[in-house]
């Protein structure tokens, strides 16, 4: 049990996918200007990441490995991810129209969110079993959500701040993201 907890905390804080591994930066910069849409995006990504992580593991373990088709890994994983994203899009459109509108193009773009494919491939590389894959995917998603929501809250505050003219907009957001990344590097000492 403690092994899974350690894996979860390690993925959320120490090996945070956005700020330490630098995966999934597109939605991190793109959807973080409003807190509400950031929360919506986090929930959608959490759903997709966890499901895609588990499904990719199953596809790899029970379809690709028995037939010695390791070289088709990337292709079939992208197929799995695309299906899960499409499914999520239908779900969001049905349940919350305003969220669907707020997320806009970024919802289908989860397909190309490299954190999703990254989690699926890292699961194989690190030889995780089924439950470890699920925890790893969920942890990556929680880490992504945590950072995205924190960052969007900061950006909402920044919008009201008196920023020097050359730093307005994207520039100050980049600097903030860099400082956040530095702060998250500090978690390296948490797990020995």
């Amino acid at each position, binding site marked *: 049990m403690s092994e899974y907890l350690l894996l979860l905390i390690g993925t959320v804080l120490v090996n945070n996918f956005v700020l330490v591994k630098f995966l999934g930066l597109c939605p991190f910069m793109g959807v973080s200007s409003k807190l*509400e*849409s950031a929360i919506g995006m986090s929930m959608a990504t959490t759903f997709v990441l966890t499901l895609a992580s588990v499904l990719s593991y199953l*596809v790899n373990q029970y*379809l*690709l490995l028995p*037939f*010695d*088709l390791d070289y*088709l890994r990337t*292709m*079939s994983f992208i*197929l*799995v991810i695309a*299906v899960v994203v*499409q*499914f999520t899009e*239908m*779900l969001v*459109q*049905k349940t919350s*129209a*305003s969220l*669907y*509108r*707020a997320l806009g193009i970024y919802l289908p773009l989860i397909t190309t969110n490299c954190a999703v494919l990254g989690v699926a491939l890292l699961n194989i590389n690190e030889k995780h079993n089924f439950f470890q894959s699920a925890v790893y995917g969920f942890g990556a998603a929680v880490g992504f959500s945590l950072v995205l929501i924190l960052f969007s809250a900061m950006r909402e505050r920044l919008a009201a701040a008196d920023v020097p003219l050359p730093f307005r907009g994207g520039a100050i957001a980049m600097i903030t993201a860099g400082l956040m990344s530095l702060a998250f590097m500090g978690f390296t000492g948490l797990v020995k």
Partner: protein
Amino acid sequence: MSGIFIAIILLTVLALFFGLLLGFAAEKFKVEGDPLVDQLEALLPQTQCGQCGYPGCRPYAEAIANGDKINKCPPGGAATMEKLADMAGVDPEPLTATEEVQIKKVAYIREDECIGCTKCIQACPVDAILGTGKLMHTVITDYCTGCDLCVEPCPVDCIDMLPVTQNIKTWDWKLNAIPVKTIDEDVKC
């Protein structure tokens, strides 16, 4: 050679399976029309007045969903505008209609500063200022139209334009909105 065929067959089967799954989901989670338009229309007052420039509330809801301004509905007022802003995910804006309506103001003479020069009395087009030479003047607020013409001539600047706060006495019954026809009693139909 057979390895390639196995790979092709496997991927085809996988794609077919996922395709079927998505097709099933699309049928199950089908959305009729644009749900955002329905929700926006539910917020509009359904007066079908056309003051927004569209032939009714439904066309205006569709226009908002396509990015039109949310402040074109005077019957709904500020409350509806705020709900629309919330639903459409844009910032609230002041209503176009309320910008033009100005707050009614009346002139007020600070009586202890008035020197009784009668210059404002001569300027007043509606004879709403009462007073005479070397005695202080005052404004009959019921007659004052808020035209500002008396402010300029006053040599001691003792005239203020005060906004009228609405209370029981200043309540506008809008009685002139009811058409009144005077019938001459002598004329027999």
